[in-house]
């Protein structure tokens, strides 16, 4: 089997059996990246030298059987907001264009301990603020299924790289849909884990109460194996939680007999594209044919999710991004004459427009006189949104819905209209607000041949259940095997 045809788990097994060497795996991926990434721009930075150096150590570990993870020897791409020691981490922002972290994020430490090899840093919307990867200061990533279309975002580089086969697996981050929506637009699988299940140490903060790192891959199995590696409590992240060890093996039974699945009517009502709705309802039929019970239920709070999300996310963003001051690290304006100008000019020249907009919106909702009407109100809505999910979970084991109201949009369409871009997050943001996990998986194509994704939303720490259901669907369908033809 060709290296580039293998899933991450298959490649790991081939390396372990000696059929493929770690170096051969790297050669195959770097060769493909060199050929195609000029067109798609998935990567901000490639770390070829570091990767080949690590490959030697990893190969020794595998040969001596000290590295036993199913993904040992497998290359991986990392979203450019996750810190990698001595490798640039830019958040696709001018303000961090030369930032070289002196430490690794906990997830990177864990990947390396398992014998995985970081091959590069993947493009994203600036500071993860956007749903198209067009707000990147390094230029937009293109959707491998149609280069005129966006890959989604903010983890657009990660999802596009896996879809195009320029990475066999990747890490992304999801604050309001940033893993699931690009996976849906690019036809790959991704997991937004329960808040607190994966350490955020070393993830450049956007909205700390919502941010969560998760895996992106070609199959549910790849995502489950990655999640097993990166999840678990970390003393360096006070919000990471103790929970029973996640076992990928147990999450891959692929059996949904007797599983109760609820679909919120408000997820398939007004505003959803016909083809997306059809694909999701067809998926529901597939689940029924596999023995699951599926029914519709009402979740009227859906319409308040976007207002609540943008208030909370922007409030936290304006606070988190106040650290960029032109002094400690990052871009410093050459035109400043005093301290105040150093702050103002460095930030004005360093941040892109979407970031400025969200910082200012955050400043507004937190400002004196508006705090109660906006920020406090949103935190109350957060409580009610979480309650709605918990009530649903009293009746259902999981919730099924579309990831986004449409398939990938044409490039440029949402840049001119930020509100329109925000409205595309309607089905994803609620999951972050509630803190629960959700897996996004391919479930069809629209009339133009663009991928459609569904999400299965689970109870807190219910990754095993939703991955199981996604695996059952994957076993019964072949959407995940379809790949775009690259140009």
């Amino acid at each position: 089997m060709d290296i580039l045809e293998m899933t991450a788990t298959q490649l790991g097994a081939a390396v372990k059996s000696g059929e493929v060497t770690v170096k051969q795996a790297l050669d195959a991926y770097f060769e493909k990246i060199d050929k195609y990434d000029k067109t798609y721009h998935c990567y901000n930075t490639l770390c070829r030298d570091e990767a080949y150096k690590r490959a030697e150590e990893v190969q020794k570990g595998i040969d001596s059987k000290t590295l036993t993870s199913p993904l040992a020897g497998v290359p991986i791409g990392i979203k450019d907001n996750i810190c990698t020691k001595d490798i640039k981490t830019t958040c696709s922002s001018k303000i961090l264009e030369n930032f070289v972290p002196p430490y690794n994020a906990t997830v990177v430490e864990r990947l390396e301990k398992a014998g995985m090899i970081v091959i590069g840093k993947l493009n994203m919307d600036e500071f993860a603020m956007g749903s198209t990867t067009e707000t990147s200061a390094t230029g937009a990533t293109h959707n491998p299924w149609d280069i005129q279309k966006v890959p989604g975002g903010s983890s657009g580089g990660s999802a596009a790289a896996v879809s195009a086969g320029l990475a066999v697996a990747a890490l992304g981050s999801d604050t309001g849909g940033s893993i699931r929506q690009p996976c849906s637009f690019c036809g790959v699988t991704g997991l937004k884990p329960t808040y607190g299940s994966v350490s955020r140490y070393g993830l450049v903060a956007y909205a700390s109460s919502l941010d969560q790192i998760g895996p992106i891959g070609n199959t549910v199995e790849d995502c489950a194996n990655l999640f097993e590696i990166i999840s678990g409590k970390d003393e360096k992240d006070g919000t990471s939680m103790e929970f029973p060890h996640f076992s990928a093996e147990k999450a891959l039974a692929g059996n949904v007999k007797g599983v109760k699945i609820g679909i919120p009517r408000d997820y398939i009502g007004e505003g959803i594209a016909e083809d997306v709705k059809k694909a999701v309802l067809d998926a529901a039929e597939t689940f029924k044919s596999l023995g699951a019970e599926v029914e519709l239920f009402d979740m009227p709070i859906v319409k308040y999710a976007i207002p609540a999300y943008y208030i909370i996310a922007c409030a936290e963003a304006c606070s988190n991004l106040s650290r960029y001051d032109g002094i400690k690290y990052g871009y410093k304006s050459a035109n400043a004459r005093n301290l105040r100008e150093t702050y103002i000019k460095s930030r004005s020249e360093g941040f892109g427009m979407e970031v400025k907009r969200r910082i200012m919106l955050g400043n507004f909702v937190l400002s004196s006189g508006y705090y109660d009407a906006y920020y406090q109100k949103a935190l109350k809505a957060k409580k009610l949104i979480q309650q709605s999910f918990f009530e649903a979970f009293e009746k259902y084991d999981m919730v099924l819905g579309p990831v986004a109201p449409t398939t990938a949009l044409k490039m440029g369409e949402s840049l001119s209209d930020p509100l329109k871009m925000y409205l595309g997050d309607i089905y994803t943001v609620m999951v972050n607000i509630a803190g629960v996990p959700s897996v996004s998986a391919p479930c069809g194509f629209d009339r133009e041949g663009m991928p459609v994704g569904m999400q299965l939303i689970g109870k807190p720490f219910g990754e095993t259940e939703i991955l199981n259901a996604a695996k059952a669907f994957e076993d019964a369908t072949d959407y995940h095997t379809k790949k775009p033809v690259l140009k």
Partner: protein
Amino acid sequence: MTIDKTLVRYLESLARIELTDEQREETEKDLQDILTYIDTLNELPTDGVQPLSHSFPVTNVMRQDEVKMHNTRDDILKNAPEEKDGCFVVPKTVE
């Protein structure tokens, strides 16, 4: 909620960001659109609801008070735009 230039300028000052005239014009319109939409949240009854900041209950997170060496000063200063004698350089702030 109505957004005007004065409010946009006030937010710029809070955010330590300075927009160009053109950006200010655009921002006024965009923030207006966004806030008009956000204001639909007012329709949601929330009387008596406890605001939720953490998704799941987190109590004080304790650990042993042990000395561990992580980042060294020199590593951190490597990312500083300007440094001198092991310190960050800032413009003179007191006359």
